[in-house]
């Protein structure tokens, strides 16, 4: 806000003072929100690290199991068993609120199945297929869990970023500019008051001088 655009009036000064008060209150609240979000972010970050590690372990296990299944049953056997699976896992998406940030809550179903519900027959397959299927079911479950945590992390990070921008804008732009404008108006009003006083004094002096010459 350029100072030349400001009207140096009392009402403007009152309005600016109100704005400064509001901005300072908003600044304090946003600063608290930012600090709270950062605390929450670190909590979720720990969970994300754990879930990443778990996901990596499960991926390695699943890769090892599929390699074993390929070794024992051959690619033909593994592919034929894979044809048995028709159902795709169902995912239910809900929202939850962390300090005003809407994050997803993902619930999965039909990922982990028992041996008899996997779609392939017990009598035409071998145990390596069971182990490979089980390890991939575990992996999918962990991926879904990690997706929930990492989306929450990303949303929290976005919110922290925008809150930080708002706090900085208030701290380094809005409030200083308003304070400067308030000071400018105050200075202009004082100057105008002084000018008025001087003018009145000058009029009074002229009036007194005129009266003296007439008497």
């Amino acid at each position, binding site marked *: 806000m350029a100072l030349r655009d400001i009207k140096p009036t009392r009402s403007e000064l009152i309005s600016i003072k109100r704005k400064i008060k509001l901005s300072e209150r908003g600044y304090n609240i946003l600063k608290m929100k930012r600090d709270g979000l950062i605390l929450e972010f670190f909590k979720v970050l720990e969970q994300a690290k754990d879930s990443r590690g778990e996901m990596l372990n499960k991926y390695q296990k699943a890769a090892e199991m599929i390699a074993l299944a390929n070794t024992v049953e051959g690619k033909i056997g593994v592919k034929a068993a894979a044809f048995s699976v028709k159902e795709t896992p169902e995912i239910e998406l809900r929202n939850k609120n962390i300090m005003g940030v809407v994050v997803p809550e993902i619930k999965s179903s039909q990922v982990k199945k028992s041996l008899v519900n996997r779609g392939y027959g017990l009598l035409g397959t071998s145990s390596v297929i*069971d182990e490979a299927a089980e390890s991939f079911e575990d992996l999918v479950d962990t991926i879904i869990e990690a997706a929930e945590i990492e989306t929450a992390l990303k949303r929290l990070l976005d919110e922290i970023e925008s809150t930080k921008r708002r706090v900085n804008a208030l701290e380094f732009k809005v409030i200083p500019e308003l304070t400067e404008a308030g000071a400018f108006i105050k200075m202009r009003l004082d100057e105008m008051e002084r000018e008025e006083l001087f003018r009145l004094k000058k009029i009074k002096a002229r009036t007194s001088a005129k009266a003296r010459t007439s008497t």
Partner: protein
Amino acid sequence: MVETKRGPASYHYVCTRMRVRKSLLIPKEEYLRMLNMSLPEITRSIGETGYKKEIDELATSFSGIDLVEVALSWNLAKEYQRILAITPGALRHFTENYLRSWDIQNVLTILRGKMQGVAAGRIKELMIPAGMKDRAFLDRLLAEETPERVVEALKGRRIHQTLEEGLPEAMETGSFANLENRLYVQFYDELVRDAMSGIKGGRIFLEYIRLEIDVKNIKNLFRLRASGIEEEIRDLMIPGGSFTPRELQVINTTRDRDEFIDLLKKRVHSPPLKSALEGLRKKRPIREIVVELTRIQLDQMERMSKRHPFSICPIFVYLEKKKHEVLNLRAITRGKESHLPAEQIQGYLVM
């Protein structure tokens, strides 16, 4: 009708040929040598051990390890067809019936592929025509549009009725698991009935099949235990062996491992199988148990073939050993491809 008129000379001839063929299978030392080779060396070595023709034939359609795997399967299928061609009378009848398990596998793969909407070419890659249904017949099944049409095309075949009865449920639930189990139960039931029908050599065949059923049931019991399944399992067990499905159901509900092993040992007659079960008291990965039981089964079958040198046993032992040669070679190549340690691959070889 089963042909039983041929004399003992043809039995001697075919059993001797089986023994000769068995002696040409890859020996244990060669597998151990392969385990220390690199993948290209193994592929070259496989090409030099009787699989060259199939590798050359398929080289235009496949490459790398897939080529080796498909060539091994094709060789197995051709070898089984050659065995059928030289097997006479009742032996042929038993062999044909025994090889029908491959038909079940192929038909189920076609049905599943059709239900999932997989292209016929991709399903065809998974076919191993080692059973009674040859490549041309399987191609005809592959050309059908829907699973219902595939089942319709099997009219007049042994598996048709079971397929027709089980297909609606499979289509509704999207799972062929129950149908698959029913087909294999029917398969073993027919093998047992054939063996008991008074055909010459039936008694030995029955002994052989019972051993296979027992080993398969025990393996599956271990699988079910590993998955923590205690519910109704009678439909998942094969009748006709030393245990009835009801007995297996009771054994499966026994949580204590020692008690579980004791119950199995009580009914098992074969001493090597008993001692193998004794070794399973300690908790081990299920895949190791399965390999161990397969080794015992093959060893027992080998003993039976020595006890009955001119019977169905030498043929079946050769069929099984040939199958395991293919499985071993596939395990070595796939294991090497996945960079598994040689010791781990060796653990899965049945030598």
